[in-house]
């Protein structure tokens, strides 16, 4: 498991509007790569174009290449459904399915996308996924209760469990902690540390301390002005980006002297 991602000359459009321009970068397998940058710089758009969620917005498209171990995600015969089974995603706000129990939430991806499995197998998947998401101990006695009844942090871990239940190669996280309190955030960050041994993880975050804590590689995106496209300014080892950035803009941003 876990694959490498290469973005090559990626341009991201919303209709006529060029939102992100000429992004070329590499995400290494079994590592955590953080995307940082101010609001509107396009880091979320880049993330969403990796598993073809970007094109769900009417009129949105990309040009360039997104390579998953040298296989183009935007190739001619590629099925976006298969892409999303390989590249999982966790969103900013926890979004458990309100009509489903905790159990059903975890197996939703399997049950609704692949052939029927024996319920014993599903039980194993539920336990394994919830254990991986550090949620098993808290919910093991009430997996048949609604997922919406959990706390925000628990819901987010449920969504992570749901995403890893389908055994993806890559896990994309779009500001997974921004709606959570510090204790839940800590729980998720610990989880990311454990998951990086198995998955390729890309995390978008507004929190630079978080990027410094969880990631090995950091990419800094910036935008000159509203209405102009966002750009990848610099990518490098996290320690280097935060201590010894090569570009002035990066230094201004990570040191808080932005603008």
């Amino acid at each position, binding site marked *: 498991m876990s694959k490498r991602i290469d973005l090559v000359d990626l341009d991201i459009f919303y209709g006529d509007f060029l939102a992100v321009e000429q992004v070329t970068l590499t995400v290494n397998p079994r590592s955590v790569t953080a995307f940082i940058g101010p609001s509107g710089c396009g880091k979320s758009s880049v993330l969403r174009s990796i598993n073809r969620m970007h094109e*769900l917005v009417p009129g949105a498209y990309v040009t360039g290449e997104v390579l998953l171990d040298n296989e183009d995600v935007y190739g001619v015969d590629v099925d976006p*459904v*298969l892409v*999303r089974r390989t590249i999982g995603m966790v969103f900013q706000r926890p979004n458990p399915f*309100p009509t489903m129990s905790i159990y059903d939430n975890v197996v939703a991806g399997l049950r*609704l996308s692949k052939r029927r499995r024996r319920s014993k197998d599903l039980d194993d998947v539920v336990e394994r996924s919830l254990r991986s998401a550090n949620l098993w101990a808290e919910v093991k006695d009430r997996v048949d*209760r*609604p997922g*919406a009844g959990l706390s925000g942090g628990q819901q987010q871990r449920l969504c992570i469990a749901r*995403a890893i239940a389908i055994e993806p190669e890559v896990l994309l996280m779009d500001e997974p902690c921004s709606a959570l309190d510090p204790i839940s955030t800590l729980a998720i960050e610990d989880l990311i540390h454990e998951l990086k041994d198995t998955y390729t993880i890309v995390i978008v975050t507004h929190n630079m301390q978080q990027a410094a804590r969880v990631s090995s590689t950091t990419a800094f995106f910036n935008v000159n002005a509203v209405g102009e496209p966002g750009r990848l300014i610099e990518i490098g080892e996290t320690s280097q980006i935060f201590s010894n950035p090569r570009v002035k803009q990066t230094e201004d941003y990570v040191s808080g002297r932005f603008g």
Partner: protein
Amino acid sequence: MTTVPILTGRRLPRWSTPVVAAAAILVGLVLQFGGISPLGLAPALFAAIGFIVARSTWSWILEGRRHATDRLMGSLVVGALLLALVPLVWILITVAIRGYSVMNTEFITGTMRNIGPRVEGGGIGHAFVGTLQQVGIAALISLPIGIMTAIQLVEYGRGKTLSRWISFFVDVMTGVPSIVAGLFIYTAVILTFGFSQSGFAAGLALTILMIPVVVRSTEEMLRIVPNSLREGALALGIPKWRVITFVVLPTAISGIITGAMLAIARVAGETAPLLLTTFLAQDVNFNAFDGSQTALPTFIWDQISRGTAPAIDRAWGGAYALILFVLVLYAAARVIAAVFAPARE
């Protein structure tokens, strides 16, 4: 050391509203029975205005302008509500009283066969069969079409030209007068293809009226399903049609069912299209595909047009039965909506 309160102001006593209201009502009664109409106003209206003026003035003197404005506007809003409720409650009470007097088992199960306009007795059994069959046919046809149209509009067609046109025509259909729907089925089905008048033709006419209502209500319900749920499901690699079937629809199902029930209730009261498509029968006709059927609204219309006292009583009874029928549908909608509502702790 005592602190001077700075956060409290003088307020009207709690009993001020009932006391002023009681005084206004008293004045109104005195005027009513004295036969006086001050300033040319009816006593009830004078009392209502008097209540608002008195309470607002008292409030201004004691509490200041902000509270007085609040109380004035509050009274006007509540007044508008009461005014809107008057005809509704009036209709309900009148129908209930007049209808209840003829309501009995024979009235519910009986028919109008061999019962002349000057004779008491008879019943709505045949009309009830007609309403159930015609509305059932309309529901069977228009619920699938309406719900699927709404799914196309919300899930597949956002911002596309085709859906804009569909949406436009659904709006146009909402405004079609019901008699035009009946006329359309009359010319398009009965005259053109030579079918006889039947409950099925009436069901088709009701379908035309029902589809836009179902589309609109289902659309509303689908639109309030958060997009984050769709994205969350799609990001798991679930195919779109399964996302719609197993995530979006279950989330919205209680609202969709409520909307469907309201649409059924709405067409159950239609009269004009039925007159053109199935007309009337005095006896029960279980075959919806051949021959005339009476429905509850056309029963009422028929009995009123006879003009005799027993017939008019039967019309009230029919109206009462129709209201009860619709009420049962509303109640069922609430129960079903509660059963299917997304589980919450």
